[in-house]
């Protein structure tokens, strides 16, 4: 592998396979709300705790799914990781290197981390042909125009769009599924190591969704990628992910291998989320909603465990004790007092001797 700029290749692994590709530590983002006309004087301003101290590792080559209801902070998390906004606190370590002064520059970082957004139309420049959109980033990173164009054609073919037919088209001349393929091709143009997929198939029809999911799985092995896959569709997350992270009101509720969690969630919120999926079996319909009410407001989250007002296993300690992430099985952790030995909850496991 040469290091010529005309030949942008994937940056080789630094820390070896045991080192996480991405480590997120205590990531926090609060948004200050504007007070009323006189609100700013004296009284402390209300803040939206969109992301409130989340930590996780993303392992090399895996797909980590992030699920949660709207407003739980999954999209804010993706934008913080992509460095599209500054965190209030916390840090992101990419393959052993921090981002910012003394570590990777943003330009170096973004060469290795790319993102695909939900809205396929809004995320493409309407005045560039899709070929030019894909060739844009490689040129910013010093690739000659000719080489960048060749790469764009190669990537269009890789995502299943005939380069001669589609390269010269504008975004409005494509269907939603085709545009999302272009967005994926563009994300691949710098040969990144990590791709953040923020609801990449939510706006697509089912038959197109299946095509794009198949494509993403093929590209992952062809290009040696790691995925962070954000979605509210639990079926899709189950299908594509190796591990899954469940968020509730800006915090991690549960994280673990996808099969373990889908077979038996340790956190009651995860269980209720999974239970809310349509059954696909008309003979076996649900009669009671697993959760009532809407997700609460992240401006003024409940005390203790943030889920306790909606939780059917709620006991007095839940409203006072903030549950830490406790081990619920191999590689599986949940922020619930029922998983924490000696927490005071009647269903907590006994303390280890």
């Amino acid at each position, binding site marked *: 592998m040469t290091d010529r700029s005309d030949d942008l290749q994937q940056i080789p692994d630094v820390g070896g396979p045991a080192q996480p590709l991405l480590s997120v530590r205590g990531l926090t983002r609060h948004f200050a709300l504007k007070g009323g006309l006189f609100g700013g004087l004296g009284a402390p301003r209300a803040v939206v705790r969109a992301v409130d101290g989340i930590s996780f590792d993303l392992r090399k080559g895996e797909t980590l799914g992030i699920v949660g209801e709207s407003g739980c902070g999954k999209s804010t998390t993706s934008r913080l990781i992509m460095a599209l906004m500054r965190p209030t606190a916390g840090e992101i370590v990419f393959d052993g290197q921090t981002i910012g002064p003394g570590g990777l520059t943003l330009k170096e970082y973004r060469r290795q981390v790319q993102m695909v957004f939900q809205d396929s139309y809004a995320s493409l420049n309407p005045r560039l042909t899709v070929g030019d959109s894909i060739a844009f980033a490689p040129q910013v990173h010093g690739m000659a125009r000719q080489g960048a164009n060749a790469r764009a054609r190669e990537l269009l073919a890789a995502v299943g769009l005939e380069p001669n037919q589609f390269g010269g088209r504008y975004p409005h001349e494509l269907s939603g599924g085709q545009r999302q393929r272009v967005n994926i091709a563009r994300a691949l143009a710098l040969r990144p190591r990590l791709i953040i997929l923020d609801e990449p198939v939510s706006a697509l029809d089912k038959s197109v969704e299946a095509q794009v999911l198949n494509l993403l799985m093929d590209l992952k092995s062809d290009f040696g990628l790691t995925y962070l896959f954000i979605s509210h569709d639990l079926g899709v997350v189950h299908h594509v992910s190796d591990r899954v992270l469940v968020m509730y009101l800006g915090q991690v509720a549960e994280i673990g291998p996808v099969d373990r969690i889908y077979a038996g969630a340790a956190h009651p919120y995860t269980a209720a989320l999974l239970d809310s999926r349509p059954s696909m*079996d008309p003979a076996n319909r*649900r009669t009671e909603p697993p959760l009532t009410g809407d997700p609460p407001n992240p401006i003024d989250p409940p005390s203790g465990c943030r889920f306790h007002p909606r939780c059917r296993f709620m006991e007095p300690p839940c409203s006072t004790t903030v549950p830490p992430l406790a081990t619920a099985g191999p590689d599986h952790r949940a922020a619930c007092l029922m998983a924490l030995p000696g927490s005071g909850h009647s269903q907590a496991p006994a303390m280890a001797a």
Partner: protein
Amino acid sequence: MTGNLVEARDLHVRFVTRDATVRAVNGVSFDLAPRETLCILGESGSGKSVTLRALMRLNPAKRTVVEGRLRVGGHDLVAAKERTLSDIRGSVVSMIFQEPMTALDPVFTIGRQIRETILRHEAVGRAEADRRALELLELVQIPSARRRLDAYPHEMSGGLRQRAMIAIALSCRPKLLLADEPTTALDATVQIQILLLLKQLQAELGMGMIFVTHDLGVAGEIADRVAVMYAGRFVEEGPVGALMRAPLHPYTRGLLGATVHDQPRGQRLTTIPGAPPNLEHLPRGCAFAPRCALAEAACLPAVPTLRGPEPGHRARCIRVQECGLERAA
């Protein structure tokens, strides 16, 4: 008069502009019994929303041509004049939309929007209308209903807004409730609450319901019968259980295969190659033939008729009898 709430016979809807004619609905026939739930399932551009809007004549009047027979609750909707239509809308047939934020009026409170509908259709006073509005918000299970009467749409969460829209739609006790993807914009936890609420309200109020969705899972939770729509026609219709267990039409099978449910992880999903046809230039025969793995010359001369191995479950595919045999084997 028959006992059916809705009777559609060979319904066609075309949009005519100077440049082109778009044939959105091409011969749809169905009946809906009172208290029955029909789910129209289809992808974008299949004509499912246009069909639904035709049942309230909501498609733009100037550019839309509606042909065929369409009766709702004994009213002829094809011939009806605008004046009659606005009497029918709300009191006989009513609709809830996908996006409550754009369907509700942002400058009026929820209470006022409900009152407005009641006053338009019924000879009651303002106090009575207000009392009914409160009752409706309680009916759709909005917590602290009295306070929410004075709330504006932007002050409510997505789930509450959708409940408020249901309350408005039900305010004049319609016989038929139309729902255009009412849960697509909602979280899974809220979606199931709204589906169960609609199911319960339907039973309490004895309404018929037509539900448009692209989500097979939603259809499985709520439908009695399902109609799968493709290129402006019903390509398959049948009882929800039979249709999901043993689909007849290759397109329905494709949709079921493409929907992520309990397939083994990591296995490739079956996909339907290609894209739906352009509704300005429909192919002559089976509209799905260009994407169908089983297509043959016999598919092309004419649109296949609806046929099926059992009563009530039919599909527009020339191979349907074969499929029936396959299943028997």
